């Protein structure tokens, strides 16, 4: 609760700061402080000390998984602010407002992570989505940004409609919005409502996490949005929606896996296929990362597919690994003059440290051992294998992982093995230090994932 409250309040603080502080660049500092406060609040959450210690008649549920997940998200936010804060300020004239919106989104994420009522899930997702539409269109003069915002908005609203339809049918079947009181069984009188409800909610959530065939907005929006916000969307927001997805399907629909598992499996396979295969041909790193984020979503779908304890661990680790790597890469990408792969040619000679960090990030995304990405993939795949069925899906997934190596390594090849003169904006030593910290974290999680996962067991 602390986190939701603090982020909502800090959003207001940011808004008012914008009113009273003329200096644009203070925004980043205030935001970082806000992120730190959020972190503190979240840690208090974790230890059970909350400002309002209530679950609001079962609207929220404070399970350690959700709270730990929020810790990861807040940490990612901190890194994001530190690495990309400057770039956020440079998007437009409303730097304080951008930060405010992101804090609002954080409170929405808090709701999504901790909801126990479909209404909270719905409102949480809307609180996450609506500011995102705005952030996407933040660069008002940019037609691409406009286009992205419009597409995102229209499709988002459409998917909201579908989700609500699903919720309505679910209510029709059970008479409740409380996730823990759904008590779903397969032999209800209203099974048909149940099935329609589950499928529609699944589809709309799949849309939010950009799973195929509901992914179409992703490449366009990620490409069109200002690069810093793409980073935010692709990492933090996506991970957050996944936690809601998993919570709902695990706590709510966990008893009727037979009804939806095949559908999820098909979505997973399609997502992996389309994400990976389409990414192969992309020339722009930004757009390639958009497709890659679809592909990564495919892997995260395994957690939802499996709904067991492994998938919790897997998703937690995946979120950490994926957020870190994405934020790291985008932080560098923002500074690049040329977003195409050729733009990276010869970066290793000019900026060996940055190239190394980017390499580590890409290796992590590709799931190479010794990076966090490996264990992330390992756990979600293990979760899927644990179900004992659909082994073909796992095999398909690893084949697609190999495809992903193809396009991730193209950037590495460009940086290290190709001659070129990549141009990059000036970077401070602090920035580099932070990047290295990201890389170190990735490798640390890759060698000893239990640093993170032990928490799940200890608390």
């Amino acid at each position: 609760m602390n986190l939701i409250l603090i982020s909502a309040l800090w959003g207001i603080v940011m808004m008012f700061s914008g009113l009273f502080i003329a200096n644009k660049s203070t925004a980043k500092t205030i935001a970082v402080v806000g992120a730190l406060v959020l972190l503190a609040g979240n840690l208090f959450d974790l230890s059970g000390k909350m400002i309002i210690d209530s679950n609001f008649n079962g609207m929220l549920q404070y399970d350690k998984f959700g709270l730990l997940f929020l810790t990861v998200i807040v940490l990612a936010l901190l890194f994001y602010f530190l690495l990309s804060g400057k770039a956020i300020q440079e998007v437009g004239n409303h730097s304080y407002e951008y930060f405010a919106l992101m804090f609002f989104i954080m409170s929405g994420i808090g709701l999504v992570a901790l909801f126990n009522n479909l209404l909270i899930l719905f409102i949480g997702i809307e609180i996450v989505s609506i500011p995102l539409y705005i952030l996407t269109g933040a660069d008002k003069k940019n037609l691409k940004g406009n286009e992205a915002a419009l597409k995102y908005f229209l499709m988002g609203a459409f998917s909201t409609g579908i989700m609500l339809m699903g919720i309505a049918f679910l209510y029709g079947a059970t008479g409740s919005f409380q996730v823990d009181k759904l008590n779903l069984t397969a032999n209800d009188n209203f099974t048909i409502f149940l099935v329609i409800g589950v499928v529609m909610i699944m589809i709309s959530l799949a849309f939010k996490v950009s799973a195929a065939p509901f992914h179409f907005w992703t490449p366009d929006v990620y490409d069109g949005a200002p690069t810093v916000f793409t980073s935010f969307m692709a990492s933090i927001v996506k991970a957050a929606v996944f936690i809601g997805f998993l919570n709902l399907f695990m706590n709510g629909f966990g008893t009727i896996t037979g009804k939806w598992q095949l559908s999820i499996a098909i979505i997973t396979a399609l997502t992996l296929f389309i994400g990976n295969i389409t990414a192969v041909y992309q020339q722009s790193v930004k757009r390639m990362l958009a497709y890659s984020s679809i592909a990564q979503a495919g892997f995260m779908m395994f957690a939802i597919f499996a709904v067991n304890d492994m998938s919790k661990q897997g998703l937690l680790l995946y979120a950490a690994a994926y957020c870190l790597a994405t934020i790291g890469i985008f932080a560098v990408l923002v500074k690049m003059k040329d977003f195409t792969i050729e733009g990276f040619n010869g970066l290793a000679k000019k900026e060996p440290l940055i190239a190394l960090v980017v390499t580590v990030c890409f290796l992590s995304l590709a799931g190479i051992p010794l990076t966090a990405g490996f264990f992330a993939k390992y756990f979600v795949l293990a979760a899927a294998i644990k179900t004992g069925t659909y082994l073909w899906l796992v095999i398909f997934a690893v084949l697609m992982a190999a495809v992903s190596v193809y396009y991730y390594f193209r950037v590495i090849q460009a940086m290290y093995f190709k001659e070129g003169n990549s141009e990059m904006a000036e970077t401070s030593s602090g920035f580099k230090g932070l990047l290295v910290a990201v890389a170190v974290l990735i490798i640390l999680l890759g060698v000893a994932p239990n640093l993170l996962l032990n928490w799940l067991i200890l608390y």
Partner: protein
Amino acid sequence: MTYFQLRASYLTIMNSIIDLVYLVPLFPLIGFLINGLGRKNLSKSLSGIIGSGVILASFIVSLLIFNETRAEGFTATTVNLFEFINVAGLNIPFAFQVDQLSALFLLIITGVGFLIHVYSTSYMHEEAPHHYARYFAYLNLFVFSMLLLVLGANYLIMFIGWEGVGLCSYLLIGYWFKNTEYGNAARKAFVMNRIGDLGFLLGLFFIIQQFGSLTYIDVFARAQGAGTSILTVITLLLFVGAMGKSAQIPLYTWLPDAMAGPTPVSALIHAATMVTAGIYMIARSNILYTLAPVSQTLVAVIGLATAILAATIALKQNDIKKVLAYSTVSQLGYMFLGLGVGAYTGAVFHVMTHAFFKALLFLGAGSVIHAMHHEQDIRKMGGLAKKLPVTHWTFLAGCIAIAGIPPFSGFFSKDEILVHAFAAEPFGIIYYVIGLAGALMTAFYMFRLYAMTFKGTFRGTHEQEHHLHESPWQMTVPLIILAFLAVVAGFVGIPELFAADAHKLEHYLAPVFAASTDIAETHPVSHETEYILLAVSITLIVVSILYALNRFSKKPETGEAEGFGKILANKWYVDELYNNIITKPLNGLGAFSNRFIEKSGIDGLVNGVGKTVQWGGRQLRLLQSGQVGNYVLWMVLGVLIFFVLAITILNK
């Protein structure tokens, strides 16, 4: 000391002589190492002395061993050196077996080998010092390998020597490595030997499977219990090995090409020792062959065919060494004929006599070539008898010996084989007739060679004539010794016909072939028949010799052969045949595999996967049309599909 004490100490020494058998191959190995490693620092004379000296040392030890084996009641002794392979219940020690057969071969190898080493010290004197040392190193290594071959107490050690001599043959044929032709010949020899070796190896695996051991004693002891068919397979596979090594049809074409090596090498390796390894091997495994009559027949037939084929080719060859080479192939064929008809002793006897007279002939040829400044074409020789008297007389002795005129050695050994062939059931008479025809041709082409070389008038250039001279003593002394041996060696095997119990060699070797002798049915030829056979063959041979001498002394053949002769001169076009049915298709297959199967096929498939993925990427991205309407349509279709799917599952 009493007599008994003396006797005891003598026996101890003698026993230890057998135990010291490892010295025999060790000396050449040491010589090889010294000459090989120190080739840059050794003077020519020193490397020559080392090279020959180590062989002499081996010869002396071999003599002592031979002496020991002659003792009455001597039984085969195994000397274990160390454990080589002991895996999976298969124990193959590095062990030597000393018995009459190996002792005899030791003598031949080290004895003839020593003479040839001495001969080489002079023959090769034009070489640069380090090449000279390299030559002796190779030669020593060869002797070492050959000794391993004959000394091994099991088939694996024999195989080690077997491949080792193949290697040395390769190295020595290609000794003048600058010449690509020679290199090709060397490769051909090695590869053809390898083909045989594969057969040999498979034979060994059959033996392991059947008998669980490769040690001669075990194998031979268990052989009598084995089925005929399995023995036939084993013996045939072993015979494939022998075909390669001993240049039998169809693997004989390497041997004439092998004449690219220095002449002493041809004498030692490609006449006296290595090529007889196949005979040694079959003689060694005689019991297996005796138990497998089908294989035996095949050995005889192949031997006979080779003998006659090679003899026909030799009729029209003009290269002095080529004639001798085909003659070797032909003589080897006789030996296999002997083995095939069960005349093991005869075959070994012929190996021995052949070693003497063929080495002699090659060395004589070497002496001629040496004198003629590396001219080998007999059409450009003639009338050398006066200029090279020692060479001439010794060469003549060799010719007579190989032609089979009594009492020269060749007569006894060849006759023994032919008589046994005649006695063989059921094709004895055919064997004999064809064999005799071969013998006639042998006499004919040998004396054609002799006449063209030594008789008539000199047909070479003036300069060559000017430089003609007799070879130095290092070359002539071995010639003389070998000529002596070629003349008298036959007396160790005087047939029953002339003197009862005079076949000393047979008595000596009897223990080796005892098991076979016990089994084989003998069809003794009556003395009368034998006399008739002898008379016929000697008469015919003498006639053909006289005809050859008469014809080629006066009117030497200097032109190119025509008609049927051309086919013979071109060796029945066998090389061309092999080229067309094996080499070319194999290369074609390789090129095809390289270009199509590998690049387009397998790699194309692998790259195709990558290309398909890229293509898929290009196509799939078109889904991303940029139109919101389309995106929503896809979404709605997705909704529909998942709906139908979910409901289908529900209704199931």
